C-alpha cells in the first residue's frame, strides 16, 4: 500500500507552522503596540508625536498593515481548518471526560481567537477610524492622547478593553508555548523555560495593555 504524500500545508503540521509564524508576527506587533501605548504616561506631546511619526511613514505604514492583515487572515484560515479537522475527528464524545494537563488558556484558544477578532474590528472603528468613538462624528485622528482618554473614560468601553486584554493574554500564554512546540523547539533542559517565557510575555503584554484604561479610569491620566 502506498500513501499519497501530502503537501506541507496539506498536513495539519504545515497549517500549524503557518499559524505559528503568522501568530509570531502579530505577537511582535502587539508587543510594539503595547510599548507605544505606554507613551501616554510621558504626556500628550510624546504620544501625539509618536502617532505623527507612524502616520508619516507613508508607504511603509501600508506595507506594514498589509503584512499584518495577511498574517491575521492566514492565522484565522489555518486555525479554522485544523479546528474543523479536529472536530470531525471525534464524532461521538465521552459521557465522562477528565483532563490532567491542559490549561484553561489552551481550552479557550478556539473561543478566545474569534472574540479577539471581533474586538479588533471594534478597536479599529473606535480609535483608528473613530466612528464608534464618543467624539464621533467630530473625531480628530491627530489628537491620539485625548481620543484615548475620552474613549476610556466611558466605563463599559474600558471594561470591554480589559476583557479583550485578558483574552489576548490567555491566547498568548498558550500561543507562545504552542508556537515553540510546533516549530520543534523542545529540549529537556529548556522545556520548563518555555512555560515561563510564555507566562512572562502574556503577563507583560497583558499588564502593559491594561495599564492605559486602568490609569484613565483611576484619573491618573486626564484629558488636556
Amino acid at each position, binding site marked *: *500500500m502506498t*500513501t*499519497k*504524500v*501530502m503537501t*506541507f500545508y*496539506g*498536513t*495539519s*503540521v*504545515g*497549517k*500549524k*507552522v503557518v499559524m505559528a509564524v503568522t501568530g509570531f508576527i502579530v505577537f511582535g506587533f502587539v508587543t510594539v503596540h503595547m510599548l507605544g501605548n505606554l507613551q501616554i504616561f510621558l504626556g500628550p506631546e510624546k504620544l501625539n508625536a509618536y502617532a505623527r511619526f507612524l502616520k508619516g511613514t507613508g508607504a511603509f505604514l501600508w506595507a506594514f498593515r498589509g503584512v499584518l492583515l495577511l498574517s491575521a487572515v492566514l492565522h484565522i484560515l489555518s486555525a479554522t481548518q*485544523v*479546528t474543523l*479537522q*479536529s*472536530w*470531525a*475527528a*471525534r*464524532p*461521538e*464524545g*465521552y*459521557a*465522562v*471526560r*477528565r*483532563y*490532567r*494537563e*491542559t490549561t484553561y488558556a*489552551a*481550552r479557550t*484558544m478556539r473561543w478566545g481567537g474569534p472574540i479577539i477578532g471581533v474586538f479588533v474590528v471594534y478597536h479599529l472603528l473606535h480609535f483608528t477610524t473613530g466612528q464608534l468613538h464618543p467624539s464621533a462624528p467630530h473625531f480628530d485622528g491627530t489628537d491620539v492622547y485625548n481620543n484615548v482618554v475620552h474613549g476610556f473614560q466611558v466605563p463599559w468601553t474600558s471594561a470591554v478593553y480589559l476583557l479583550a486584554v485578558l483574552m489576548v493574554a490567555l491566547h498568548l500564554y*498558550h500561543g507562545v*508555548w*504552542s508556537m*515553540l*512546540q*510546533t*516549530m*520543534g*523547539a*523542545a*529540549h*529537556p533542559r529548556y*522545556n520548563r523555560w518555555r512555560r515561563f517565557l510564555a507566562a512572562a510575555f502574556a503577563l507583560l503584554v497583558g499588564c502593559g495593555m491594561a495599564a492605559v484604561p486602568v490609569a484613565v479610569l483611576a484619573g491618573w491620566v486626564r484629558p488636556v
Partner: protein
Amino acid sequence: MNFTLKVWRQAGPEAPGRLVTYPADDISPDTSFLEMLDIVNERLIAKNEEPIAFDHDCREGICGMCGAVVNGYAHGHERGTTLCQLHMRSFRDGATIYIEPFRAKAFPVIRDLVVDRSAFDAIITAGGYISIRTGAAPEANAIPVPKENAERAMDAAACIGCGACVASCPNASAMLFTSAKLAHLGLLPQGQPERFERVRTMVSAMEQAGFGSCTNHGECEAACPKEVSMDFIARMNLDLIRASLKHR
C-alpha cells in the same frame, strides 16, 4: 468491594450504543480492572446475557491491546499504567465507574469497548520500518550510536501502540503515536537514509486516517501508559519542516 458500572454497550459498528448499568459486587481489592470485567462477564453469562466485549492480550502491561476510557481517563486514573495493570483497590468502595471505548473517527467501535485500531497499522505501513535488510546483529562497535540517542530511541520505542494518546486527546490526534514511531527509527543510524521521506509519508497516512490536529494540550503524554514524551511531537514537527524544505 462493591461498584456500580456504567458500561458502553454497542452490538456492532453500525448499531446504536448506550451506557448500561451493571452491579459489580464482592470484588476483591486485588483484582485487576480486566479481571473485574471477567467476573462481571461470568455473572452475565450465567444469567444468559451477552458478556461485555473488551480487548486484552498479555495482561502484563506490554502488548498495547487493552484500553478503555475509565471515569474520563484513558486506561484509568493511574499514571503510566495500562488498564490491565490498574487494580480495583485504587477505586473507592461503592464507586460508580464509567467505562467507555476509545473515541475517535479513526477508531470505529467494533463492539462494546472494542475499537478498530487499524489506522495505526496504516501509519506504520506508510513508512514505520527500515526498507533494507539490516541483517543479523552487527558487531557492537561497528555502528557507533551516541548513548543519549540510544536512550531516547528506547524511550520512543516504549510506545505499545495502545491508542490512549488518541483517546485522551481533546482533538483525537495521533501525533504522539506517530512521532514516537518516527523517533525510534530517526534517532538511530539505520533510520537515517529514509528519515525525511518517512516523516512525510507517515504524517500523510496519519492525516488521511482521519485523526485530529495537535493543539499542545499535553493530555496524550499524561495518559500514555509508557509515559512517552511529547518532545517527540516537536521533533516530528521539525523533521517535517526540514523534509518539506529539502525533498526534491
